[in-house]
């Protein structure tokens, strides 16, 4: 077995020459025919010697001591042949042998600080290019199906008041709730903020299905699926002939779901939701997309290796219910370095639902709304979904692709076909990223916008 090692060796003319050349030429290597011999070690000729200075005498560790001509010691790279790392010696002649382990970026998990910020996300999506083409969400309604939006907080955070169409928003029945845009700062406000990265001119519409309970109304449907059912029923009707019909397009962002099948009817029950394409909400969502509403769902936060605790350790078949409906666009999450976040739910979906989910990946875990406190990231696949919804709203701003011309199904196909794959990922669909990272410029080019 070939085991990579680093050697610390005393100065030698060949090492000084290697390090001197490397200071000005990145392709410099090591002339192994001129170096001393280190028994049992094969040196890597592609790795230039690195000056280490005087090593053990801190008093002489000056900048000058690291100059190749003055450095007392150098690091070189090589390998040894051994059956096991325990067989590797500590020395090889004049050289001390050290490990040269593989390194990797730390995967982003729930407690990780934010990586990048909203501006970084905007740069990744090339928002300036989109805005240069007037693809900024204008004439598009963007429904935040969530806990409700706090418009004053958004105004302060964005430095401008975003468009919010109260008349087109949904209010749950019962004791008068807060008005559209008047809900406490919470998850829905975070999602609304994140749509604004790519679609600052979209008209937000408030669909507070998750936080619509109020004592005394006698009707506690909030926080259960029937609230979403009622809200989407309203959306269908309004889009057909109500206030939502005035918009060129309508996009709906959904960053919610169930975390575990135990929240549902038992397995095999014909009325079950999470793995039943015939459940009325799954049927309704499919009908909504056929009606020309672009529906996006977050994949969930039950991915390995750092799933949410509410997933109860279940990380396979974790994309369930409406997130696993074929007609919706299902979003996984990556950080601003294009690395999948460790909790993003992975495909394939729960059995009996459409299997190739997630569809694509979008950005999360960045410093954005700070809706949960100063310095806290907009996180979860919850943030990835509205970031992507903003991209969809921006694309739909184009007069060339109204839903009547480019169906939701066709638009989502274009999004999948033009997603960006990072190095090392297989072509086609994979369980972590779907078809890749959402790439608005590529979609713009493909659609001729």
């Amino acid at each position, binding site marked *: 077995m070939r085991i990579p090692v680093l050697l610390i060796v005393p100065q030698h003319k060949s090492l000084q020459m290697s390090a001197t050349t490397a200071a000005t030429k990145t392709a410099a290597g090591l002339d192994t025919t001129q170096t001393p011999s280190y028994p049992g070690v094969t040196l890597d000729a592609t790795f230039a010697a690195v000056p280490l200075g005087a090593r053990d005498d801190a008093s002489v560790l000056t900048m000058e001591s690291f100059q190749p001509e003055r450095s007392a010691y150098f690091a070189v790279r090589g390998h040894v042949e051994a059956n096991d790392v325990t067989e590797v010696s500590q020395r090889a002649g004049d050289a001390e042998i050290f490990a040269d382990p593989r390194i990797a970026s730390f995967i982003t998990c*729930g407690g990780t600080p934010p990586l990048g910020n909203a501006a970084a996300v905007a740069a990744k999506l090339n928002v300036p290019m989109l805005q240069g083409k007037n693809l900024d969400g204008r004439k598009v309604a963007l429904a935040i199906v969530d806990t409700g939006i706090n418009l004053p907080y958004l105004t302060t955070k964005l430095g401008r008041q975003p468009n919010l169409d109260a008349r087109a928003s949904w209010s749950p029945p019962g004791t008068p709730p807060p008005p559209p845009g008047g809900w406490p700062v919470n998850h829905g406000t975070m999602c609304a903020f994140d749509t604004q990265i790519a679609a600052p001119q979209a008209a937000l519409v408030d669909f507070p299905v*998750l936080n619509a309970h109020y004592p005394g109304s006698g009707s506690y449907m909030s*926080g259960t699926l029937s609230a979403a059912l009622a809200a989407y029923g309203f959306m269908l009707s309004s889009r057909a002939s109500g206030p939502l019909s005035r918009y060129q397009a309508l996009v709906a962002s959904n960053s919610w*779901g169930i975390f575990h099948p135990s929240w549902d*009817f038992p397995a095999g029950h014909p009325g079950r939701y999470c793995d039943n394409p015939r459940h009325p909400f799954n049927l309704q969502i499919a009908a909504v997309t*056929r009606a020309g509403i672009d529906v996006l769902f977050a994949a969930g936060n039950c991915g390995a290796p750092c799933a949410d605790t509410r997933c109860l350790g279940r990380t396979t078949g974790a994309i369930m219910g409406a997130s696993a409906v074929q007609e919706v666009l299902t979003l996984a999450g990556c950080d601003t370095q294009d690395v999948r976040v460790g909790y993003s739910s992975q495909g394939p979906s729960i059995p009996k639902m459409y299997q190739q989910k997630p569809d694509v990946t979008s950005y999360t875990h960045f410093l954005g709304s700070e809706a949960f406190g100063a310095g806290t990231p907009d996180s979860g696949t919850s943030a990835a979904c509205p970031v992507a919804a903003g991209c969809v709203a921006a694309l739909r701003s184009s007069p060339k692709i109204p839903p009547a011309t480019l169906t939701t199904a066709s638009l989502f196909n274009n999004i999948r076909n033009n997603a960006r794959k990072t190095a090392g990922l297989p072509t086609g669909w994979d369980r972590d990223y779907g078809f890749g990272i959402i790439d608005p410029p590529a979609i713009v080019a493909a659609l001729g916008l």
Partner: protein
Amino acid sequence: MRPWGSERPAALEFNAGPCDFVYVKDGAPFVLMTLTASEHQPSLGEAADKLGVSLEDLDSQFGVVPIDPEKGTYAVQVRSDKAPAPSTEPESGEYHGPWSNPKIAPFGPLKR
């Protein structure tokens, strides 16, 4: 119902049936049912007739919610003790259910 965690508010009662959380109104648990109406969206009264229940057994605040208007599918909430037995024609019957109505929660900041 809180969007976070698994705590349940007092008004949502633990059900001995298949689902932990049920939709409750005025102390009565309700269940989600669907019905078909090919010609137009039914009124609450028409929905009650199709289900063979009285108007008072349906949740008027929830109303009749369109699922797929093109296929004539709609949803209502029915008192669980008055809901009709499952249809004997599972593919073509006039009504279906009860359907699961689970708790939903945001995929936002993680619980660790």
